[in-house]
């Protein structure tokens, strides 16, 4: 089993300015790819293009060798994307939030799994508190619980370390490495300096 996300001659233009041009990417199993660049260099746009959210680009995308248009369903079934905003409903409890995410991918799941996932991110005891009452870091942790709750091969994480304390940062970093070692693939932007690892690859924009 291996996965492979490829981009050929990728270019993105915003307001008459090229964010990037002629970008060729090969992202494979067992890699942590960090997209680097100053603010406004198009990191988020690149992640959104690679995760199939933006259509405003030139160039081609391939998933396991097939054109993205045809492989989109299979691609989405293996993608876990965490954006700038954590995607956590403040009116729902962490448990309810996770239940919706599980159901979105077509799994009913069960309470046990969700409780375990929440415990894994250090939110034991907060399962039924409305997420609106949690701190920004805790809300981010609820979102991060999806990494273990709904296992996916490709993780696309936009600034996942935002609002997380330094213990959480260290743990998340380990989790990323473990995922890559297990044959998964991580695509990440972050201002936080990742510990050097043979699995880590950097791509600079701007």
């Amino acid at each position, binding site marked *: 089993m291996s996965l492979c996300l490829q981009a050929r001659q990728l270019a993105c233009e*915003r*307001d*008459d300015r090229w964010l990037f041009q002629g970008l060729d990417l090969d992202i494979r199993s067992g890699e942590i790819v960090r997209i680097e660049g100053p603010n406004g260099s198009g990191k988020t746009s690149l992640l959104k293009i690679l995760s199939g959210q933006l259509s*405003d680009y030139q160039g081609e995308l391939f998933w396991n060798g097939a054109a993205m248009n045809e492989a989109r369903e299979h691609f989405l079934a293996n993608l876990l994307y965490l954006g700038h905003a954590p995607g956590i409903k403040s009116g729902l409890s962490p448990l309810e939030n996770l239940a919706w995410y599980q159901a979105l991918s077509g799994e009913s799941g069960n309470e046990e799994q969700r409780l375990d996932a929440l415990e894994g991110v250090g939110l034991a005891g907060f399962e039924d508190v409305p997420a609106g009452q949690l701190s920004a870091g805790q809300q981010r942790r609820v979102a991060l619980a999806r990494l273990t709750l709904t296992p996916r091969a490709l993780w696309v994480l936009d600034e996942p370390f935002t609002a997380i304390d330094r213990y959480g940062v260290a743990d998340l970093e380990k989790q990323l490495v473990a995922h890559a070692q297990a044959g998964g693939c991580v695509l990440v932007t972050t201002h936080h300096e990742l510990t050097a690892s043979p699995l880590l690859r950097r791509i600079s924009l701007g």
Partner: protein
Amino acid sequence: MWAFIHKLGSPKWFYAISAKLQPWFWAAAVLLLVTGSLWGLAFAPADYQQGNSFRIIYVHVPAAFLAQSIFIAMAVSGLVFMVWKIKVADMAAAVMAPLGAAMTFVALFSGAVWGVPTWGTWWMWDARLTSMLILLFLYLGVIALRGAFTSRDSASRAASVLAMVGVINIPIIKYSVDWWYTLHQPASFTLTSRPTMPTEMWLPLVIMVLGFYSFFIALTLMRTRSEILRREANKRWVQDLVKGQVVNAQAEEAR
């Protein structure tokens, strides 16, 4: 066929071909509009019921035709843009919207002016005028939506979707308004549903309609060309074009 569509989609090619087409449409527009107006206003016989005031039909009906056609053309351009990502189609749609709104306004205004001698008032909730008014709101919606986005690509795609939604709704709106009108004001006198018109009355009307269409095509070509220059200003071919013109002008001056 495919090669042709894609060629048409290239702004540079469109810019070149439209330069050749444009004068013909302008010439046709001037010729048809002058002939049609002279014939319609001076030589066509007066209406036995409305007298000379019926002559406003030569502006009202072509404007109303065009107002509806432009919306359809705009939606088709939007579809072409969405399906084949042809940017010229979107540029054309962008310049068509204000033109269509203006035509709708002309149709409404001429209808109001016509209303004074016919109904004795500037406004009646006549089926055709009501539909026109709703069409004007649809145009204003498309224009406003396009203006509201900061990203041009999103603006183009949003305006295209709205134009397509609108064009599906236009016949529904038209039929419901007609139905509503007959229910509330049965058998009243409408502006343009006339018993058969004699040839010397409707022939100038046909000429005027054709003239309006030629005028619209010429104007759309012209405005699309300037839109192309505006949007492609940082492209090589546009810069070369501008440089070439500057060089020519300098050469002229030197002579």
